[in-house]
């Protein structure tokens, strides 16, 4: 998942700022905060062991593959976020799905590449594969943040501030606005209460989705305008999936739209380069 939401932003800040605090660690710290709040107050995790397994599997895979293919020990913040995302978002009484999803998440970065860029958000890939191929064993996180609105508000506000600092707030904001707009549209189409259509975004799954998955710098297109357009499409495809009663609609939508946008951008860039050479 957000393999270093903050990493690209970190490249822009002056060296002296980086000496004060490495921005790469904001995202891991934030997701750890979400994990701790969620679990200590509401027990959102299946168990400590399963989440730890997901994190360890992601980190070990990153270490091994980084060493093999790049000849160095890579920074592990990205793998940590992928692992912790799998640990939170996947729900299974079994252990193996956590390890498998994490390993697949990291491996996808090394296998599914075009022109040096990986296409899928890693944890989105790992989780979707498991949801699709092991539905008898795996589900996604579908619970809420307890019974209180304050944890919800705190995490949305804190997440927004962090994502703003990382210069990716426009992506999250566009998605959230689109989700609400499409929620009203779905309600109008289906006749279901609008509260029911809005309900999913009040849960922690969406907080991780909005702050970490769709903003991942490595798997989003480069231009700010197109980043907004792509997440608008993510929300639109999600609506189509929801109208067809697909339970894991947002995850599947990003799985479909994200790589498609990346491929189009890569193709356009290669055409542009060819044109420049000519």
């Amino acid at each position: 998942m957000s393999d270093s939401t903050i990493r690209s932003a970190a490249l822009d800040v002056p060296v002296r700022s980086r000496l004060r605090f490495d921005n790469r660690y904001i995202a891991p710290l934030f997701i750890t905060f979400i994990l701790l709040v969620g679990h200590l107050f509401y027990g959102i995790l299946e168990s400590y062991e399963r989440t730890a397994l997901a994190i360890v599997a992601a980190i070990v895979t990153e270490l091994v593959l980084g060493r093999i293919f790049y000849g160095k020990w890579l920074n592990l913040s990205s793998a940590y976020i992928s692992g912790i995302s799998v640990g939170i978002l996947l729900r299974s009484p079994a252990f193996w799905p956590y390890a498998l999803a994490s390993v697949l998440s990291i491996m996808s970065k090394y296998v599914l590449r075009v022109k040096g860029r990986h296409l899928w958000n890693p944890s989105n890939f790992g989780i979707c594969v498991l949801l699709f191929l092991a539905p008898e064993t795996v589900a996604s996180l579908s619970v809420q943040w307890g019974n209180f609105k304050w944890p919800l508000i705190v995490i949305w506000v804190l997440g927004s501030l962090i994502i703003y600092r990382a210069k990716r707030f426009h992506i999250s904001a566009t998605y959230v606005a689109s989700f609400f707009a499409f929620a009203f549209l779905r309600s109008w189409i289906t006749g279901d209460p609008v509260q029911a259509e809005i309900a999913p975004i009040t849960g922690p799954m969406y907080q991780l989705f909005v702050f970490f998955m769709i903003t991942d710098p490595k798997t989003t297109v480069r231009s700010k305008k197109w980043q907004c357009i792509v997440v608008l499409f993510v929300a639109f495809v999600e609506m189509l999936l929801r109208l067809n009663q697909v339970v894991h609609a947002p995850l599947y939508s990003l799985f479909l739209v994200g790589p498609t946008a990346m491929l189009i951008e890569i193709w356009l860039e290669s055409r542009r380069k060819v044109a420049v050479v000519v």
Partner: protein
Amino acid sequence: MLRGKTARIILLIIFVALIATPLVLRRLSQTRAVKTDPSSSLSRYGFYFQEVSQTSNINFKHQAPTLDHQLDHIMPQVASMGAAVSVVDFNRDGWSDLYVTNSGEGSKNALFKNSHDGSFTDVAADLGIANVNQSGSGVSMGSVWGDYDNDGYEDLFLYKWGRPELFHNDAGQKFSRVSEKAGLPAWVNANTAVWFDYDRDGRLDLFLGGYYAEDVDLWHLKNTKMMPESFEYAKNGGRKYLFRNLGDGSFEEISQKAGIDTRRWALAAIVADLRGTGNQDLFIANDYGISELYFNDRGQFREAGKDTGVGFSPKSGMNASVGDILNQGRYSIYVSNISEEGVLIQGNNLWMPREGTGGDAIKYDNLARAMDVEIGGWSFGAQFGDLNNDGTLDLYLVNGYVSADRNLNYWYDFSKIAGGNSTIISDAAHWPAMDGRSLSGYQQKKVWLNDGLGKFVDVAQAVGASDVFDGRAVALVDLWNRGVLDVVVANQRGPLLIYKNNVGQENKWIDFELEGASSNRSAIGAEVKLFWDGHQQVQQVSGGSGFCSQNQRRLHFGLGKNPQIDRAEIRWPSGNVFTIQKPVAGQVYKIKEEVQSSSFSLRSPKEQPKG
């Protein structure tokens, strides 16, 4: 360092292989027993079922209530409980009878009296316990039997979404309504109750667990904000009651004083001496949240769910039953939850006491997956019992929530609202309409056969438990005094099913019927620990177990082939202990507690007791 093409090809192969792993695992795990004929089932598994409700003259179909019209759009899932069954020998003739609840407004409950010839007669109306679902008084959810006045006859406590009722058994001839005298509350939306002697004073007390809050009248809603405030953290359910038996026909409600103060959505409760203290601890399986375990320190309760490990991960608890599944002399607890492929995989819980822990420091591990009893469906009632008399406790589980249109599914909408904030989920008006759709409907049942070594295998289809009704309550009972456990299943909006058990003759058995003296006369809470062939198994007389059900009072032990029984130790709630050396297989031991010791008499399985 490998950067070359070879490394990438190897990585790709591993990647593809890992993606294929779930498919391979799925294929490997499909080892469920398939349908076979009775003789094959008998030779392979040692038993098979025949559904005999019609030939037993039992023609009972449960009716669901019709609640406030503001709930019309989700009525099937709100009015989704009430089918219950409890076993009693109400007239002390030595043959088990069945009390079955109904939940339609104006519908009748039934008391099926055992005619000893394989048939049953509904005598509820004649005895005054049929017409208990009148408008304005709520409808039945379940019942438990206990001899609260120690007169030798089992009395009936009926819990409802409505006015709870206590009926005194007048020597098996009539039932007298004594609810007011008992001091019961005017209205409780309850789905569980258990008789037990919490303070060991020789009188049965009563635990009653609320589901919806008690100020909610589901037929006349003040507003629609009566749903759980969370799918997994709800604390806006009904209060709990602990009625202390004062010995004069009245009860004192002492739950808060005794340390039980919770508003979780209780669906099942079980009481057992989990720590070996002689006191009955209380386990509550809650819907929309964590389970609770109350240690009983001789009348004072303290919650120990988190400390013991059973009360951390919130699920949808709908059953609580105990069994000594590995013949270790200790109880495991089985809690049913919800599992729906592709949507929600909670998995059922089998809480096994951790090796080396006990007393107040007891810890539990969930071994449901390891023992293959994890995935049922939308599971409700479950009971442990030795179905093939091989000496190990098997597990019968029913599944299925709302069976409506087979081709339309409500799960997407359910999952949508279930993840919402409390302000959304708690208001029924926000829930999408069901529109005739099923929600985990038409699900198969599980009959998990215990191999005694830590694994269970599902043989439901093979042994004839093949119905797909929306199962709720399960009760195990030897209906025809044959030394086997038959299975009775109450289905929501469905028929009462009687699965007559046909067990091979090679495996032996022994039964114990206990009657307290210093202890409560029903002997609820008494334990029998049987030692044979190097095995030991403990069972307890229960005042209610499973989901809205109560098994037969008699304790049934399967023994396997050619058993050599060493002894049976009976521990009474009073603390008295009585041992029978070298009891004989194939007999029902009737054991009566006496002040200093106990005595027993024998009777053949089909012999009627005298006097």
